[in-house]
């Protein structure tokens, strides 16, 4: 039955080459931890992606309760954490995932660096990877404000001061982020929410797509 449905679709759309390219791509021995245990260092990139998927899913569930305004933000997080069924787990996974994704991405960067995998012909993929790193740090910075508790506001205050010290355009960046030249308040929270939930994920998806298309195109770098 399933085969017949598959054939029916394939006859019309020729879907076999699309997924066969991903399914059949060769995984060489030197990156396979089943053959060489030390090859676990090649798992860091995959684990980073795994946590990213968990971040997306847990984040989607968090927005079902979270309210991005100064009156209700903290209350909604408190409610989510203490009253909602499994809310503590969902928020916990998003909170710890944010740290773990940085750790895993850092280890992945070090693996690529120390195996010299960024060299020709993989320069472009390295640059896209550094871009992903920056976007992830941006997600961490903007997400830290959203619970609207004391540590969030004061850490963001410091962060925005640092952004404001950029020569020439610092003041503009500050107003763009905070929504006001002096106040860190309601505007800042809604802007950080929009950046954290819409702008940066959109950039992240584009960069991740480029990262994966490039690695499928070129294959993984050879053994040292």
């Amino acid at each position, binding site marked *: 039955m399933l085969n017949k449905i598959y054939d029916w679709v*394939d*006859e*019309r*759309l*020729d879907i076999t*080459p699309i997924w*066969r390219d991903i*399914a*059949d*791509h*060769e*995984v*060489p*021995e030197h990156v*396979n931890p*089943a053959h060489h245990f030390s090859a*676990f260092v090649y*798992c860091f990139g*995959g*684990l980073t992606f*795994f946590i990213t998927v*968990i971040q997306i899913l847990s984040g989607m569930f968090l927005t079902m309760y979270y309210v991005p305004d*100064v009156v209700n933000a*903290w209350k909604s997080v*408190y409610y989510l*954490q203490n009253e909602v069924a499994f809310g*503590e787990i969902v*928020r*916990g996974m998003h*909170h*710890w995932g*944010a*740290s773990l994704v940085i750790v895993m991405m850092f280890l992945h960067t070090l693996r690529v*660096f120390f*195996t*010299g995998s*960024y*060299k*020709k012909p993989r320069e472009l993929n*390295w*640059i896209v990877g*550094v*871009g992903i790193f920056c976007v992830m*740090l941006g997600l*961490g910075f903007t997400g*830290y404000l959203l*619970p*609207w*508790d*004391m*540590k969030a*506001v*004061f*850490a963001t*205050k*410091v962060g925005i001061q640092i952004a404001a*010290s*950029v*020569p020439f355009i610092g003041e503009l960046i500050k107003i763009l982020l905070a929504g006001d030249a002096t106040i860190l308040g309601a505007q800042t929270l809604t802007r950080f929410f929009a950046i954290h939930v819409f702008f940066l994920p959109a950039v992240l998806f584009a960069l991740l797509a480029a990262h994966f298309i490039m690695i499928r195109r070129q294959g993984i770098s050879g053994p*040292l």
Partner: protein
Amino acid sequence: MHRGKGMKFVGDSRVKLNDRMPNIPKDYSEYPGKTEAFWPDFLLKEWMVGAVFLIGYLLLTVAHPSPLEGPADPTNASYIPLPDWYFLFMYQLLKYTYASGPYNVIGAIIIPGLAVGALALMPFLDKGPERRPSKRPLPTAFMLLAVASMVYLTWESVAHHDWEATKAQGVITDKDLGLLPDVEVDETSPGYEIYQSQASCIGCHGGDLAGGTGAPMLLGNELTAEEVAEVVKNGRGAMPAGAFDGTDEELQILAEFIAGLKEKE
């Protein structure tokens, strides 16, 4: 795809009926070593690694609930700010003399900018064909130095931070939760006016009598008027002695007012 004359564009599909790819796995017998297919062979192993990782991740999640401090009060001037742990090394960098104050731009922009810029342009700075770390000493040394500095700065930041104060300033109070004791405050009484006129009172115990960082809530206290007057005169715990600015009669009125802030039975 057929090009040129004879191509029918309208009502035609690019998928040809008898030109489809057969759905057969690739043969790996000719590949070197133990090369294997991504799906299903390798993905199964990756999933096992992922499952082990997920167990650790979930244990972390259930063992350490994610932190939440009291609701934001941007007017609090005594709060010691602290970023998330992976920004601590930058936070620490900005404490050094030549990376802060008039040199702020060095610590905040130039050093991080150079580091990220060099990282992004690595393929063009290290162009040689050698891939082994031992065969390219400069890039290896710079990266090890960068990692060591990040670890050192993070360590310094953690070691010099007052974690007790951080814990104390983040506590969620009954006031935050809207759980103040059921006390009726007579805002027309002379005691209330004296309280509001004393900067040293409202500075710590709050204009709403609900307490603040390190100062207890006065609503629902269990002291007598004599005890209150005694504490105001001589101080107690973190409260300094002799902070009250007024006559003894005023102090007596204030003490009676505060002692009257009892919770209803």
